[in-house]
């Protein structure tokens, strides 16, 4: 147990020291963006893996956060940090407005509805004038890679810790899983599915909004395609599915692997876009077929069956049918 904590502290120490070790801003940017994708993948997974709702409009919140910060900084002259809570709040409001009608839907209908909503919002931002329409928005540049590294690190680390606590330790995690497994049974046991699903939606949406806000200030230029397009959602989906839904650590690992893979392509191959998408599609198809529980889910189930073989008496194994008590 204590070794686990030592490793965790060591890991945090390394993360905090990265900017002073990695002097090359190219690599620092890569790590910073990897954090962002971890945040997007784990926040998408709150709804997909834990609650059982495939949200194909997750990018909405990223985009809304990005645009809120851009508008406040550009048109109202706010400082970056003042815009963050507003971006979070706007993402939350959008989540409530989008969630109330869509969370009644199930399965593919929810996926289609959220996807359609994302496209609608992208179009709306495209034709609006205060968003700069198709020209997008420029933000006052702040060229300080270390600042963005630490901001992303703190936000994503905080989101990870919050999700770990709420979903793995607190009652909330079991409640959302109950809804995922059987909402009728959950209802008969005192759970209000509408309320819990909405809470999960907020837990998923608000971090994405904050990440969008940081991204906008970091990249200094956003347009509807870059922050509200399909790719934000799609990549978060692939990362989480590849890593393993509903495992928290899985989507984080999936995000790192797939993001590094993408960056490698981008850096060393000229036709990277097309190839990346082809390979991404291949990876997702293969992982759904060969790793239905994702990378992390597969690893842990091997470890568990190992443990079970070593430590559990035969009579309590799950495939045993001879137990007189049941």
């Amino acid at each position, binding site marked *: 147990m204590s070794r686990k904590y030592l490793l965790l502290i060591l890991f945090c120490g390394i993360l905090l020291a990265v900017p002073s070790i990695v002097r090359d801003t190219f690599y620092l940017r890569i790590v910073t963006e990897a954090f962002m994708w971890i945040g997007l993948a784990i926040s998408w997974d709150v709804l997909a893996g834990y609650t059982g709702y495939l949200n194909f409009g997750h990018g909405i919140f990223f985009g809304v956060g990005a645009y809120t910060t851009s508008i406040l900084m550009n048109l109202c002259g706010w400082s970056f940090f003042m815009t963050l809570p507003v971006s979070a709040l706007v993402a939350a409001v959008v989540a409530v407005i989008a969630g109330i009608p869509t969370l009644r839907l199930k399965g593919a209908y929810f996926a289609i509805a959220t996807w359609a909503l994302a496209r609608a919002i992208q179009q709306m931002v495209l034709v609006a004038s205060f968003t700069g329409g198709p020209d997008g928005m420029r933000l006052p540049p702040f060229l300080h890679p270390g600042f963005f590294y630490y901001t992303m690190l703190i936000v994503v680390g905080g989101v990870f810790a919050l999700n770990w606590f709420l979903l793995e*330790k*607190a*009652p909330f995690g*079991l*409640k959302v*899983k*109950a809804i*995922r*497994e*059987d909402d*009728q*049974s*959950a*209802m*008969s*046991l*005192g*759970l*209000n*599915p509408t309320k819990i699903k909405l809470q999960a939606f907020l837990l998923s949406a608000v971090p994405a909004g904050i990440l969008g806000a940081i991204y906008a200030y970091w990249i200094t230029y956003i347009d509807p395609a870059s922050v509200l397009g399909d790719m934000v959602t799609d990549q978060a989906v692939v990362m989480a599915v590849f890593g393993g839904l509903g495992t928290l650590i899985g989507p984080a690992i999936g995000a790192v692997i797939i993001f590094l893979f993408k960056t490698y392509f981008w850096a060393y191959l000229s036709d990277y876009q097309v190839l990346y998408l082809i390979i991404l599609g291949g990876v997702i198809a293969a992982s759904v077929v060969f790793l239905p529980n994702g990378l992390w889910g597969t690893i842990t189930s091997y470890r568990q069956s190992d443990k079970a073989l070593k430590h559990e008496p035969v*009579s*309590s*194994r*799950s*495939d045993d*049918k001879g*137990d*007189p*008590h*049941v």
Partner: protein
Amino acid sequence: MSEPFLQVNAVTKTFGGLHAVFQVSFQMNAGEIIGLIGPNGAGKTTLFNVISGFYAPNSGKILFKNLDISGKPPYKLARLGIGRTFQVVKPFAGLTVLENVVIASFVKYPQRRKAEKHAWQILEMTGLVDRANVQASSLTLAGRKRLEVSKALALEPTLLLLDEVVAGLNPTEADRTIELILSLRSQGITILIVEHIMRVIMNISDRVVVLNFGQKIAEGSPRDVAKNPEVIQAYLGEAPQ
């Protein structure tokens, strides 16, 4: 007890043109076990769904401890102390048996640690302790039925609705479940039980309510109901179970 514990007053529930439950009335006193019987499709499960809040009645009223609960959502009724099982069992398949029960324990014990402790006690009572850490999906049918009861019990209900929790069990398993039901009664829980197996109903019910085609056709002691010609007719008309 001056006031009945549960009053079902002229409850009707229709699906399209079909009266699944039509003008059904009966009362339960605290601590009673009432058997609800009737041929397949008589409306027993539908009536359970109305009492537990899954369907609002088209007309009629349900009073629980003198409170009108008709049309209230199931999760509110669960918190008021109405526990139910599902005829088609609904385990949280991907979670462990213990986790299944803990979820229900949260109603009375919001803290995780206390809820877990409570869930262990429930599993002890229902005989699922040694399965606590297996996935609910790996339980046999008998285990799943026990789990249904465990989840409902973890609410610490005062009214328990049991929908065919004995059917499909072998005689030993059935006896264990009957024992459990009787011990629940001795704890003061009021129980409404649907069961096709007459041996069960006749042995444990204080009174029996008989439904046929959505209507109540008889009510009384198990002995009287078994002699009632209309009841015999209803069961002979359909295939008896």
